[in-house]
């Protein structure tokens, strides 16, 4: 019986020792991990912000609508040269590394349509820097001309400008629940006709 009590006591003492030393260390340790996702796996849905699934849905929806509306209205013998501007972020979330990716995805989708050819973002950034203009200035004809002249001088003339803009609307449903609507708008300005098209795609997301 004494031996049994002694063993219990030792166990309890050991537990206290272990808890006192190991728990504090383990409580906040975690090993980083990563894996290559299969091509068939769906995109991850961000727990804090838009994330891959949201952006893919927004981009594919908006670009398809744009190509259908403008492509149907405008027929050209040769591919139209398109300058896609950086995304104007008017949302409550930062784009971070999505900024470049969104440009690339829009650019790739437009190129794949076969009717358009996009201009590299490097030329567009350089053109804006050289002309000391911001993308909003390109709606002023005189300032737009300056920008287009720089692109033409670089042998990458633009016939169409596309202005992407991301907005969000948030509905708070308590301290831990919210609904956020993401709206991606693509505004296309056809320089030769002066016409502009606007298409939008919305994704609604619930957070808790």
């Amino acid at each position: 019986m004494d031996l049994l009590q002694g063993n219990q006591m030792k166990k309890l003492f050991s537990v206290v020792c272990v808890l006192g030393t190991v728990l504090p260390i383990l409580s906040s340790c975690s090993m980083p991990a990563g894996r290559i996702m299969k091509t068939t796996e769906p995109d991850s849905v961000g727990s804090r912000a838009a994330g891959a699934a949201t952006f893919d849905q927004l981009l594919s929806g908006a670009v398809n609508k744009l190509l259908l509306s403008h492509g149907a209205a405008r027929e050209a013998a040769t591919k139209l040269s398109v300058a896609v501007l950086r995304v104007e972020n008017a949302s409550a979330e930062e784009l971070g590394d999505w900024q470049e990716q969104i440009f690339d995805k829009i650019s790739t989708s437009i190129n794949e349509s076969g009717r358009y050819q996009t201009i590299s973002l490097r030329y567009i950034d350089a053109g804006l820097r050289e002309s000391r203009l911001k993308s909003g200035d390109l709606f002023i004809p005189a300032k737009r001309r300056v920008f287009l002249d720089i692109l033409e001088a670089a042998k990458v003339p633009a016939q169409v400008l596309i202005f992407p803009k991301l907005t969000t609307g948030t509905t708070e449903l308590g301290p831990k629940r919210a609904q956020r609507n993401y709206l991606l708008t693509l505004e296309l300005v056809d320089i030769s006709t002066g016409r502009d098209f606007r298409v939008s795609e919305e994704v609604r997301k619930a957070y808790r």
Partner: protein
Amino acid sequence: MDRYLNSSMALAVGLFLVSCAGGQRTNVRREFDEGRYQSSHEKLTGLARKDGKNEHLYLLERGVVSLALDRAGDAVRDLRLARDRLDDLAGTDYVGWLSSMMLDDRQLAYQGADYEQVLVRAMLALADLADGNSEDAGAYALQVASRQRKIIESFRARDGSLPKSSYRQVAFGSYLKAIIDEEALKFDLAKIQFQKVKAIEPRFSPAAADIKRVVEGHHSSKGNGVVHVLALVGRGPFRVEAEEPVTRAALAIAHYIWASSRNRAAIPNISRVKIPAVAVYEDNPTEVHVSADASPAGSTSLLTDIETLALDEFEAIREHIVARAFLRRAFKVTATQLAIEAANRGNDRRGEYTDGDALRDLGISAAGLLWSALEGADLRCWSLLPASFQALRVELSEGEHLISLQAGKKGVAAGTPREVKVHVRDGYNTYVVAIFPSMEGGACVLSSDAAEPPSPPADASGSP
């Protein structure tokens, strides 16, 4: 008997090592104050590599240093990683916050003070504006208020009250959003944000003129642009260890948690506990004096007083912090008592208590005492935050201008002026970020649209 003594010693040594592990941070504050940014950056990089659990704390610090080194893009990256990690670690609710800290805060990954979790977003917005190559500043600025709302609402006490609802709001985020909206000619949105600034920080005297300007619907006169000087003034609040008496209110909070988590009301008698209190520097500059092309343009006005923010936050949840420290100490005392009780169960049955048993109990008690004695307040904090965010709006003609800045105290300029030559564009904002931690020490100025790179930091030539 020897086995118990050995076990007690092992426990004591183990606890000592664990307690020391969190206290090996090198203080980079001094180097930063002296303008040795490159050296600070290298030290923080090394610390982040060594102490992976608290990497985000060093990234917060390094974000400020990167900004001082005119690497705003790097600052955004560091601060964003730190923000995401802080969000992951943030306590879920009130009871969770109290009961998760039964051991020693210093052994846990740094969770960040509430004001730090809010201000990391303000710093992100500032760094993004300084970078000048991104569109995310507005989003970060909006996150300042939304994060603060979440922090307040998620901390509900047992009586249903929201102890953090007395927190002071951060006007800096609203101000940054306002000037971004104003530049984009969204005057209605800018007006809402300027009105928030006026309500949150009545000491910000330019708010009335800002509201009037956006109501009239103009950003600047034709041919002019605006230079926004955004200043990080003084050295921010820091933590000191304080012996705090356990008040009746704190004891009531602790009793509630103790009884609900241990299913018994007996609680050890502890009169004082160590807690991390907030302290501030007394010799901080109070404003930055600005001149444009050698003509005085005014001085910056206070937008967010970080010292008051931290002190108010501390006062708002002081009793809860004491209750938490009390619970932690009570847990240790009880664990030691339980160990002695269990060890003596055999003796009680035998009806004898030998010298060996006495020595064993002494060993357990000594280990328990050491466990409690080694406990210290968690003094970690985002030490490179400024004491305040301040701003000055200067309307200038299109073209290049030399902006000169000088730290000041109560209206008197002192210290070495810092200069930056900037481009001003018709109808647009140019951002000048000024970091002035002290009156005479290191300081730096950078711009989103610098015509010439600002002068290198003090230790740039000596760095590898």
